[in-house]
């Protein structure tokens, strides 16, 4: 109503104002289709911006495909619009941005990227009754807050940490283990779970050190760790830290096997660690892109538009489809109506079959362990 009024005034006013008014009104496809707004939240600035942009691109690709194919609910044509927001991987910013999206009238959210940002934001979406699917938050706490709006299409840290710990003790026979984490909800959660299961498997945690998600200097903690001569160093954190960490281990002559989670199982890690990446082991929840049911087709479509897949883009892509799938089954984009059908999801996505358990976690979370060999990540083992 207001917009129409503005447009009329614009037409009658001076040419410049008229143009601006028209510009504001000619949103793409707003002719007959109603707009469904979805939010995508991830860090788009700061050290993890490359991962954040990857999530946004994955979601955008799905949105564009759905729009291209046309979305009709209860006989009405709908146009999806993705609002991409930047939470800077910061818990405080995350809640502000979440509230902003709620105020903007989104009916579903894909995000956030980091567990530390996803958890506080989950409360905002829960209060507004808006479904949230995180493509990458793996902290156990996220889906255990009692919010029926919180889902994820990624295995959680319990699944990942214990898979890694079993691999470290059973396959690598590591007895003396040093653990470093970056004190984020993700890094700490993963490292704690790893420590718990490794200790239960009979390994000894000889050092427990901490860093931050902004650090580049690990020489001090690595020097302390070296004094305990561990056979394996486990790092709970992201690739911007893991890369220099691997280099500095080599610089100090710390020969233990470096191991980590999905935060460092990226191309960027190999790039940053250089020669020191060789032999490093890391896992990723889910199955490798190449082994995903429709991974190759996704990769081709994604690369044509955005270049290399960094990490979570296929999960963000699936998250959009899972939301839209529930909307189709509810025949409505009203969050209250389609939220009720989300737990009953059984969707064959790019990343695999997506079904949720009572918490909103993946019913079958696979974890794949990789090792860098000749400068590329190669699959060692997929653990169901």
């Amino acid at each position: 109503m207001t917009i129409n009024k503005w447009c009329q005034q614009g037409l009658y006013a001076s040419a410049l104002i008229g143009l601006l008014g028209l510009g504001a009104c000619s949103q793409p496809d707003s002719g007959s289709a109603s707009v469904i707004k979805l939010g995508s939240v991830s860090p788009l600035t700061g050290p993890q911006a490359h991962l954040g942009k990857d999530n946004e691109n994955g979601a955008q690709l799905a949105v564009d495909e759905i729009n291209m194919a046309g979305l009709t609910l209860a006989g009405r044509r709908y146009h999806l619009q993705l609002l991409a927001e930047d939470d800077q991987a910061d818990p405080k910013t995350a809640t502000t941005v979440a509230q902003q999206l709620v105020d903007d009238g989104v009916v579903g959210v894909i995000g956030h990227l980091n567990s530390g940002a996803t958890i506080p934001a989950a409360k905002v979406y829960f209060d507004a009754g808006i479904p949230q699917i995180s493509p990458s938050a793996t902290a156990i706490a996220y889906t255990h807050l009692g919010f029926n709006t919180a889902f994820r299409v990624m295995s959680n840290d319990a699944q990942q940490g214990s898979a890694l710990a079993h691999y470290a003790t059973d396959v690598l026979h590591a007895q003396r283990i040093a653990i470093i984490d970056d004190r984020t909800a993700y890094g700490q959660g993963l490292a704690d779970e790893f420590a718990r299961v490794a200790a239960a498997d009979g390994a000894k945690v000889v050092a427990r050190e901490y860093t931050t998600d902004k650090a580049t200097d690990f020489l001090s903690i690595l020097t302390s760790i070296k004094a305990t001569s561990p056979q394996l160093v486990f790092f709970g954190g992201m690739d911007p830290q893991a890369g220099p960490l691997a280099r500095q281990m080599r610089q100090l002559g710390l020969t233990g096997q470096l191991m980590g989670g999905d935060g460092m199982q990226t191309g960027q890690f190999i790039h940053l660690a250089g020669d020191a990446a060789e032999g490093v082991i890391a896992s990723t929840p889910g199955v490798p892109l190449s082994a995903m049911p429709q991974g190759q087709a996704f990769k081709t479509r994604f690369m044509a538009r955005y270049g290399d897949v960094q990490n979570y883009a296929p999960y963000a892509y699936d998250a959009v489809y899972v939301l839209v799938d529930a909307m189709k089954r509810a025949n409505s984009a009203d969050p209250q109506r389609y939220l009720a059908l989300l737990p009953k999801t059984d969707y064959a996505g790019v990343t695999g079959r997506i079904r949720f358990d009572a918490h909103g976690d993946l019913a079958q979370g696979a974890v794949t362990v990789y090792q860098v060999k000749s400068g590329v990540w190669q699959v060692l083992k997929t653990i169901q």
Partner: protein
Amino acid sequence: MSTLFQQLINGLVLGSVYALIALGYTMVYGILGLINFAHGELAMIGALIALTTIAALSGFALPVPLVVAAGLLAAISVCMVLGYAIERIAYRPLRNAPRLAPLITAIGVSIVLQNVAMLIWGRQYLSFPSILPQGWHALFGARITDIQIAMLATAFVLMFALDALVRRTQLGRAMRATSQSPQLAGLMGIHADRVISLTFIIGSGLAAIGGFMVSAYYGLAHYYMGFLLGLKAFSAAVLGGIGQLRGAMLGGLLLGVIESLGAGYIGILTHGFLGSNYQDVFAFFVLIVVLIVRPSGLLGVQTIDRA
């Protein structure tokens, strides 16, 4: 014992970089009473320029020292021009404005530089080409790498050179005179604007070298790296006594060593109550204690008219 020695080496190398960058803060503060918050970003630009140049040249099978020298030279010259331009555009027009005004433009320049760097180099962490020698030497059970030796040597040579420049040359005397009173120095035939420009140019050159060293050392560079680096170097300058050249050097080295020892031993000292993630807290705690006891820093001189 070897662990302690390794921590000292780690700390000294890190501290020498802090010191180089702290010099830029302290020189500008000494002359203008201005905290140039854009200084850390200059180190970042220097690092990225050097990285780009070296990456571009490393395809041509040139000798390594030549490639490194070219990268360093490119970084220094770009940063010097940038430092000069920043002073001309953002600070000189505000020379007689209230002191808060140039502080705000300094923060503004810092944000602009960060965003320009993000537009040019993107948001990704860039990897420093691994062309530098990876050799190391054993020293009392600790390891010191060739890169660390080169960094320490460069930093100390530059610090002594700058100290000599300020204390023994005509330009240095002009700088000291300008820092006491630009107006009065002008009456003595010193071209104060020129001296101030030169101060910025020298400081920016040092920042470029500091930025280059950090990115070569850790093997990465990023548009955001200037923020923390600048903050640490600024703290080092304050710790040593801002405005004092030797203070910045001492402060930088001390801060590096404190950080390193703090991260290595804080867990043992507090029986695991505080972990190594408190290394920055530890460093800033020392800074606060020093400032409570000596408000003008370790080598600072009590001044009456300047805050």
